[in-house]
């Protein structure tokens, strides 16, 4: 047993080394710096306890970024999962065109959201205004997709959905293929209509995939950065500034308050941790009940 443990340690040592230096140490360091007033420019810094966290409570910009991100997450979790599931069911019902549609739906997922955001910028600032002009539609012409806080939010949602739906559709497709055909047929013979079969047979069997789908969307949407960076840069003003961008700006572009930015990043971690754990607990329970 002891010999086995020694060998085990030897085999995991290389991975453990890289992991410790580039993940574990920075994580612990992040927590430690959140308790200091380190500002990056100055080599010396002091331990200031929970003062950074107290300051966060009064930081309206940061609190606004949390509310904005929460709104974004909520809409994404609902829309992305419903649309992906609908697309997966639609694709699954096709015969010859199945592969073609799967290819097209997933395609945006291969593209970085930085590039995706720039391409959509072209659509929002050039193509859509042009189309509005051609249609001579005053209401459409008035929309400033990137200059108005509300429409910027809509634009961010559209581009995020465009980039994220393909991934979930693939997961739901895989889950749908695992649904027991005989179960569906048996329900149909018993007189259940298409909706009832879907509600009572399909949904319960793909519940584990739905748990994963919601988990993935929650996790990614809370950390959203690239789309916002490339599309609005957090603007106009700070109206579309998400949490990750607020942290980034605090540490690198506006000022170098590393200690304070670290405290904010710990808050982000805590939010993601609590919400995903609650989500997994609730939905896993439902999987068993259902």
């Amino acid at each position: 047993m002891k010999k086995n443990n020694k060998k085990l340690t030897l085999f995991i040592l290389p991975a453990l080394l890289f992991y410790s230096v580039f993940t574990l140490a920075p994580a612990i360091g992040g927590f430690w710096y959140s308790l200091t007033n380190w500002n990056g420019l100055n080599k010396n810094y002091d331990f200031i306890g929970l003062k950074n966290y107290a300051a966060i409570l009064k930081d309206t910009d940061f609190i606004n970024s949390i509310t904005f991100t929460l709104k974004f997450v909520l809409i994404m979790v609902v829309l992305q999962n419903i649309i992906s599931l609908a697309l997966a069911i639609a694709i699954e019902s096709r015969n010859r065109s199945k592969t073609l549609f799967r290819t097209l739906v997933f395609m945006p997922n291969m593209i970085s959201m930085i590039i995706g955001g720039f391409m959509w910028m072209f659509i929002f600032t050039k193509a859509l205004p042009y189309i509005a002009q051609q249609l001579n539609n005053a209401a459409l012409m008035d929309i400033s997709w990137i200059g108005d806080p509300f429409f910027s939010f809509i634009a961010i949602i559209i581009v995020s959905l465009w980039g994220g739906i393909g991934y979930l559709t693939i997961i739901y497709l895989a889950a749908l293929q695992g649904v027991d055909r005989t179960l569906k047929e048996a329900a149909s013979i018993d007189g259940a209509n298409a909706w009832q079969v879907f509600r009572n047979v399909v949904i319960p069997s793909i519940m584990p995939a739905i748990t994963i789908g919601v988990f993935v969307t929650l996790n990614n949407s809370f950390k959203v950065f690239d789309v916002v960076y490339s599309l609005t840069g957090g603007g106009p003003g700070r109206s579309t500034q998400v949490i990750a961008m607020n942290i980034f700006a605090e540490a690198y572009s506006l000022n170098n308050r590393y200690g304070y930015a670290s405290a904010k990043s710990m808050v982000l971690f805590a939010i993601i941790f609590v919400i995903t754990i609650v989500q997994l607990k609730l939905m896993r329970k439902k999987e068993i009940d259902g």
Partner: protein
Amino acid sequence: MKTKKMTGWNLLVLLMLILYSIFSLSPILLAILNSGKTQGEILTNILSFPQNFKFDNYLIAFEKINFLRSFLNTMVVVIVGCTGIVLLSAIAGYKLARVKSKLSGFYYSLFVLSMLIPFHSIMITLVKIANVTDLQGKTLGLGIIYIGLGVPMAIFLYTGFIKSIPPELDEAARIDGCGDLRLFFKIIFPQLKPITATIIITNALWMWNDFLLPLLILPNSKTYTILLSTNMLFGQYGNNDWPAILSVLIMAMLPAIVFYLILQKNILKGISEGALKQ
């Protein structure tokens, strides 16, 4: 009556899929269409085909973002990162799957528990560590950092996969006098091909499309990845030179699209398997 209703439903589903596919492709198609136009043509007619497709725009773009250099820089990062992640994680996963002890359980949870930590929570200290270890500013350094970030997920997948390989095979080889490391490379590693493919694909895509970490680690334009070069160009030309920007965007995403069209089956399989195991 029933079949008629079914075809109506079928048409609706087909229509929905076609509409979504148009949505999915429209940014790419519009970018291709307009990348071959002059700035004036874009202003007067966005939706039509260019009068004559100006391939010059691509040549100019190719030089503007120093495409070859950016491409090679990105490849260095991806190759270093993937090689490290695969080798270190497979070796670690092998023993984690085979040795059943408290220590083994501890190591495993140590790796796996970190998967919930968002990148932004480690970012600031990570850049400091990159500075101290002299990895800052180097493509090779960025690849090495990715190894440290990527091993937990890969270890998780490898450990699960190796548990499904019967240990009797190990025993037989051991009787033949095979040492542990040789046994791993001769007997175990070749059997890991499917999961190794999944791990390489998902990690390569992640590193290829990652933006924030390269932005922080590679400040010098000589070491820019494709994304960083693209971002810089967009910053320079902003909204003014769309033909140039769109050509750059097409070129920047081309490698990933080609990769996708060639390896589509493996990529989609890897994604659904990787996700459903969590």
